[in-house]
């Protein structure tokens, strides 16, 4: 599935994460991960993001994750919302 429109979920507040998904013309998924704890958790954030994108069957999108120290359950919830919003018409 391709991302249909630009969407966000979450926020930049402390302990939250802002997910922005924008459509891409090519069939690929681009990940941009920023985090205030990138050294400790960057790899984990990327892994969770990729897993969820694959599970949601996204084939064309740019996924921008700006983490402000969110717990993994928060990250998952925000990703789920954003992914669903991006493909809803």
């Amino acid at each position, binding site marked *: 599935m391709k991302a249909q429109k*630009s969407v*966000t979920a979450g*926020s*930049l*507040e402390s302990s939250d994460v*802002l997910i*922005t998904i924008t459509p891409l013309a090519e069939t690929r998924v681009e990940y941009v991960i*920023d985090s205030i704890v990138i050294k400790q958790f960057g790899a984990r954030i990327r892994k969770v993001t990729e897993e969820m994108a694959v599970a949601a069957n996204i084939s064309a999108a740019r996924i921008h994750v700006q983490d402000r120290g969110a717990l993994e359950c928060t990250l998952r919830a925000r990703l789920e919302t954003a992914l669903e919003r991006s493909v809803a018409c």
Partner: protein
Amino acid sequence: MSEAGFGFEARELRTKAELSERTALLVSRGLTVPEGAGFVLGLYQGERLVATGALVRNVLQGIAVDSGFEGEGAAAAIVSSLIKRAIERDIEQLFLFTTNEEAARFRNLGFSLIAGVPRGAALLEWGSEGIEDYLKALRDVARGKPERAGAVVVNCNPFTLGHRALIEYAASHSPWLYVLVVEEDRSLFPFEVRFKLIREGVADLTNVTVIAGGLYIISSATFPTYFIRPDREEAAQKAIRMHAALDLATFRARIAPALGVAWRFVGTEPFCGTTSVYNETMQLVLPATGTAEATAWGLEAEVPPVEVAEIPRFEIDGEAVSASKVRELIRAGRLAEVERLVPPSTWKWLCGAEAAPVLEKIRHSDSRH
């Protein structure tokens, strides 16, 4: 829980009363009320306005938090809400102006710094495509072309013999010349037309490349006051100076190295106050060397200087040829007199059917651009 965070409610400010509350908040934080109509958001706790921010086109402006609510995440909440509104409007690249001292606070919110002038302004951007993508495109353009090239930045509203003379001079004094065209579409002649007439007007020069200026050269992000009416007030002059410094610091630190530019050519400006302030600031920022002088403009000491060559305006019968003169003649219904001020390519376009709506617009406008 509201979208903006616990205890806060975000809503659009529309009424006079709401907007004057916002003005009071901005003034209490030593900020001026930004120009331009846009989407103004307020963050309330109960009936109290605790933070505000606005989205004007693709620029976040007038962000302020009540001094009693600092450190409570109100800034993050307001910025997040504004990003959301922007994304809903398919604006994916955002700019933010702030004081250089406040820049760190926004960098913590995921904004990246484009340029910052100590004790002056800073420009930041948000989005997954940014200045790095633009610079990569510039490096692709410059690949294989000579080093120590020249550059001119032009609006050409429209392209005249004055522009032609400047570009001809610059091209004959540089191994290669880049003509960067202001892309912001707020001039009477649309960008596509300005770009096309420049290309046609310099087609015979073999060492010239015409490039769209993009978001980082005299755009409403790098230089918002360029597009508003000049004001003689001291505060307005100060703002112009501050924005000019930021635009020029961006040019020197980011754009010139990507293109391998060592010289910037500019025509003296006899008419427009904003442009002459810009040119004065250029003489200070671009060639500054030595640690103390360069760092005063927020430049790393190793950023190579760009020499500035200011060329007197091309004159016909003792009068400087400029685009504003051309527009003035059109406005006065003296189109025939324009012919001797512009190259044949521009004249041909002005006489064509495509020009009619533009000419009509000029006759009914008193815009500076």
